[in-house]
């Protein structure tokens, strides 16, 4: 079975290459569906495959850039990408990320920063979870009220409507974002992207997990446009990140390419699945993903406070994430296959 292992030329370790492809497919499907890079899922996966941590982040970002690019192209064809919004947000994201990264170095010099970062991350995930499920519950209540009143359910109704209040701020220049169907101050997406970029820089993550819900709840994008536009951001910032990490010698390109083979195809499946799943369906599964991510961080924190259970907590967290990745990827793929079957059957019936 030696042929199932490949020697990584830079890291110098032998890796089970089918594992890389499977991991790539899983995070590709999820990334294409939710519009995020998924670093929080890839790193423990690479770790389990025996990958040195020094190369994990760079390798993850390199494969993420490639898969996000192909997902953006697919979402673009579906009309899910607001390129104007993406370009406006790019400036804020990069500036915010750099400031966040510099700030974390400053905090490191002051003292114990790891714990603070993890608690901030956990608090943020709890807030996102609350936001997503409150939104879903309020939307459901609106739907029920409409049904009870004998009215037609409004497809464009939303639960949380913070974006409507933010759109009332008319600080020039004002911009029309046609794909997203928004007219707002250009400072709104700039401020939101700076804030999400800054958080991503401080937390050491790509930012899709924060940016996607921010696009929905603060900027006011429809779910599908939020997914597509976020992927556009991930593709550009991913390429920048890949160049930066590779120049520092922290990318194992052979592993990134092997993962990319699975991820590029998986990302297409995830992106096409958004054709068949309603906006609120995407929000619901996203909320579950955030809960999984939160639990895994909580387990890591428990290990820090009670060192005797640290190893067990680490193992549970790793398997929880991998289980979550497999479960969600499978769910999205099944939904995509069911939707495609229905579409093909309808086409045949029409012909």
């Amino acid at each position: 079975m030696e042929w199932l292992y490949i020697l990584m030329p830079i890291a110098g370790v032998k890796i089970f290459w089918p594992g890389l492809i499977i991991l790539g497919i899983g995070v590709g499907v999820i990334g294409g569906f939710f519009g995020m890079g998924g670093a929080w899922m890839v790193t423990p996966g690479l770790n389990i495959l025996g990958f040195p941590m020094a190369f994990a982040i760079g390798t993850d970002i390199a494969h993420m850039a490639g898969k996000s690019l192909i997902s953006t192209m697919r979402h673009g064809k579906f009309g899910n990408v607001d390129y104007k919004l993406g370009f406006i947000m790019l400036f804020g994201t990069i500036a915010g990320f750099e400031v966040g990264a510099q700030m974390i170095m400053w905090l490191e010099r002051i003292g114990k920063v790891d714990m603070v970062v993890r608690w901030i991350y956990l608090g943020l995930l709890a807030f996102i979870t609350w936001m997503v499920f409150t939104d879903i519950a309020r939307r459901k209540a609106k739907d029920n009220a409409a049904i009870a009143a004998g009215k037609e359910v409004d497809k464009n109704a939303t639960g949380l409507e913070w974006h409507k209040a933010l759109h009332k701020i008319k600080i020039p220049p004002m911009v029309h974002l046609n794909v997203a169907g928004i007219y707002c101050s250009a400072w709104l997406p700039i401020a939101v992207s700076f804030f999400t970029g800054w958080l991503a820089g401080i937390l050491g993550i790509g930012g899709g997990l924060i940016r996607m819900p921010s696009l929905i709840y603060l900027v006011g994008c429809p779910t599908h446009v939020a997914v597509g536009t976020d992927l556009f951001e991930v593709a550009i910032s991913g390429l920048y990140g890949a160049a930066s990490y590779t120049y520092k010698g922290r990318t194992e390109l052979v592993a990134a390419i092997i993962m990319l083979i699975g991820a590029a195809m998986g990302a297409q499946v995830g992106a096409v699945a958004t054709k068949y799943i309603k906006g609120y369906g995407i929000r619901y599964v996203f909320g579950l993903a955030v809960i999984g991510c939160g639990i895994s961080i909580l387990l890591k924190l428990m290990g820090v406070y009670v060192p005797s259970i640290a190893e067990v907590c680490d193992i549970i967290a790793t398997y929880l994430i991998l289980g979550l990745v497999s479960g969600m990827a499978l769910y999205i793929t099944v939904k995509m296959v069911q939707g495609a079957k229905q579409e093909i059957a309808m086409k045949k019936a029409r012909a």
Partner: protein
Amino acid sequence: MNAKIKALFATVLTFVLMAPAMAFAAGGGGAPIVMVADTRKLSGIMAWWANLYNESHLYFTILTIILIPLIGVIFGVLADIIMHFIGIDLKSRDLAEH
């Protein structure tokens, strides 16, 4: 409500303007670690690749930045061809919900 949002926006804007100064005052940090690939067990393209890494991170980076999007697009297009062959409409999306 409107006044509160304006005040919040002004606070965020002030922070956005102040944050870079605070961050840059902190300056950079972290000791650079030099990593060298062991090419003794490698042959062919893998050896060439590892040598390129050892000799020039710049060329290695340029090649990475070319290869990653290229491979992504190749396999993505391959998936497209398969899905198109199956009969999935890859040009439009009927669902238009928030």
